[in-house]
């Protein structure tokens, strides 16, 4: 499972695909202050990326991948 949910934190691991969008979406809807841990994230499908934009979770750890780190911090 590329997304591990623990209390208020979702850990995104490796490749988060469009199949995970629904679970992630529902999880965000249920949480008041969601947090995400992106340390081990290698790629995130656009559908999930835009969920991060919409729900604006607190990013508690940035991806180790340089370019991806940039993606998730430079949104408008």
């Amino acid at each position, binding site marked *: 499972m590329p997304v591990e949910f623990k209390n208020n934190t979702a850990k995104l691991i490796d490749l988060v695909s*469009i199949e995970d*969008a*629904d679970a992630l*979406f529902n999880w*965000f*809807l249920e949480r008041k202050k969601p947090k995400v841990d992106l340390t081990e994230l290698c*790629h*995130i*499908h*656009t*559908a999930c*990326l*835009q*969920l991060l*934009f*919409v*729900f604006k979770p607190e990013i508690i750890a940035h991806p180790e991948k340089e*370019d*991806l780190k*940039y*993606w998730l911090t*430079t*949104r*408008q």
Partner: protein
Amino acid sequence: MSNPLIEQFIIESRDYLQRIGEILIVLEENGEDKNLLNELFRLVHTLKGNSGLFDFPSMTKLLHASEDLMNLVREGTIPYSSDIADLLLEAMDIVSIIIDEIKDSGSISHNSIQLAEKKAKEIKEKFLKSPEKREQKIEEKPEKKEEIAEKIFDFSVIPEEFRIKAVKEALKGKKIILIQYGPEAECFYKGEDPLYLVRNTPELIWVRSYLREEIPDPSLMDIYQCITNFELLSSANKEELSEHFKYVLDQVKFFDVEPTDLIIPEGEKNGGPVYEDFVSDAIKYLEENNVQTFKNAVKSLIELSSSELYFTSVLRWIELLIDYLPKTKNIIEALLQSLETMTPPKFGLEKEPTLPQKKEEKPEFPEEFLKILNSQKIVLEKLKTIENNIIKTNILQSIISSIENGLMSLKKTEILNEFQELSQKTSPKDFKLLKKWIETKFGFSLPSEKVDETVSPEITFTSTESQEKEVSLSHTISKVLKVDETKIDRLMNLIGEFVVAKNSLPYLAQKADNFYGISELSKEIKAQYSVLNRISEEMQDAIMQIRMVPVSTVFQRFPRLVRDLSKKLNKKVKLVIEGEETEADKNVIESLSDPLIHIIRNSLDHGIETPEERISKGKPETGTIILKAKHEADHVLIEVIDDGKGIDAEKIKLKAYQKGLITEEQFEKMKENEAINLIFLPGFSTAESATDLSGRGVGMDVVRTAVEKFGGSVRVQSVINKRTTITLSLPLSMAVSHVMIIESAKEKYGVPMESVVETVRISKQKIKRVKGKMTTVLRNKIVPIFYLNDLLEINKPHVINEEGKYALLVLSVKGELTGVVVDKFHETADIILKPFTGFLANMKVFAGTAIMGDGSVLLIINPKELINASRI
């Protein structure tokens, strides 16, 4: 075929292939159309993508080659031609064969694999390996896409480190390109991941993504709609980028970026040391070309100053630019100047002098004039996109004269003279001077925001309007449901059974009353029955609606047929289709397909003359075939009209006589109209020699047999050398048949209502034997009479009523009246006909069976076969 994914793939692929075929032909007829070319490319691309999901490499390869070819056409590298159409149509035919094979056996035959490989190779060799053409494409491109990035993008959003990186690349001689990518909302459904595409962009320098629309309530968002936009900087060349984004080119915009667009110093302007000394020193170093000292001075100052300062930012830029002196001298000077004034640097020549002019000129021109000027400037901007030189000249002329008029009315003779001088130098090829003149003279007086809005409407590619369109489009798409036909058939059968089950209720009511003597229960059952009856009728109606399809599903294959055949025959033919939205039951529509192919082939082969022949007859060179569909009562009429040579009745008669199809007596007496209908006789053909297309003598009788099998009829009318009209008439629906129930030897039978002319009672004496055959005179017409019991080989005499009269059912069989004696007439009924299967299928006297409300089985008579049986 158990894999639902493959089933879906097959259904979709057939749709795509159909549409691809249509577009290819429309393109050939109407010339290149950008939208169609785009659609074509997308269709082939989607098809290719889908095929890639399965293990059909030869199919994917062929589609890939076709796609590349379409891409070249789409980009205008090679013009669309009949050759390309042929090649692509053939390629799609092969794909179609492959899809049929996959449906039938789940795999592709060796033969088809070879065909596909061969065709893919052919496409590659003919079109995809021509380097000259490719180069041509490269040259053309930048011209078209010359857009000014500065206007649409605020480069200061890019962090300095990335701007520095980009400028470095630019100074090394690379072009920097800004890409705006607005993926379409439905892209996820196509298996696209825009982020993945963007991350893999060649020579990516910087990128940002953002939501293009507000999501007021996240809980209502559609997570499978893409609402993210991307903006990126890359130093790859445009060709590489076009290749990378080739599947989404319509969603991507490229803009050339100048290094000066990116050199934007930023930071805190107050505080820090006083820089005047540095500026004067630096200018000195620059003039002396003392690069090393200058560089050292800059370096040490950067180290000393806080990195947050505006000053330091300017220094960082200068440090970068020093290495590329002298070409960067102007930029460095501007940066130094900006340090003195603490205002953003002004690069380039034209911008500086215009600034002070702004204040002087503005009050001199009234608002109206500036507005006119503004609109003329917008037209000028758009002039670039016009290719026709005459139009260009005219437009330019009108721009010049309107500005002249404006200046004259303002009495600005000085400026007017200047303008007239300039306008003489202006030509359709070079109107940059004029544009620049407007910009420098009045540029800063113009309401610049408005200019931006109007000049670059295309730039706002993610405008809310287009999004709304996309969204509404997606809604209409999602409301169409594609269902396998067998599922509909099953539903229809179930409804049929429900109707039968429902019909048992009146019997039950009767039984409750008569047998058990509970009349109240009987009434209640009847009340319930009427409710069920209403629902079942509505259900039947609804399922009929579902089964209704437009005739276009059959018609759409004809443009291709006509195109191919007319090429083969060297004839010029235009196919006109009318009323393709006319609907009828799916089975009816499908039954039309083969007869229509025969008819159209005949029209092309025998009807339409060669161009030379047509010209000599004074007809237009191009023949016309009209394919028309319309409703008439409960029938659908299909007419095929051609303006060819018509049918020569005498020739037909003679031919039929020679072939022994008619007797000498018939030959003498036959009327023209009857003679024409001889073409429907089996074994008839007038073509002198059998061609590849038709003329083997199996044409029109096949048409008639096919149409009659479905309860339809066909007729032909012709005016020699003018036209031939062949009309097919078919029932709208074949699911529910209306039958009349009759009784003979205590058995009930159904007779299709369309054959029943009337029911009469005739006395025994009125039946006369003529030459061993029973006949009677009915309304002054001699009608042959048959006894149903004889026909069905039931050894019982027919019953007569109290008045001593027989019940005579008058039928119309092949247009002739025939009387059939039966025992009794009953009511008519709507039944669902189930044809015989297996061994019983050979029993042609009956069309099939139907189950009645009381559970009994009703045999449905096929009148034509019934009468035929008597003759044997």
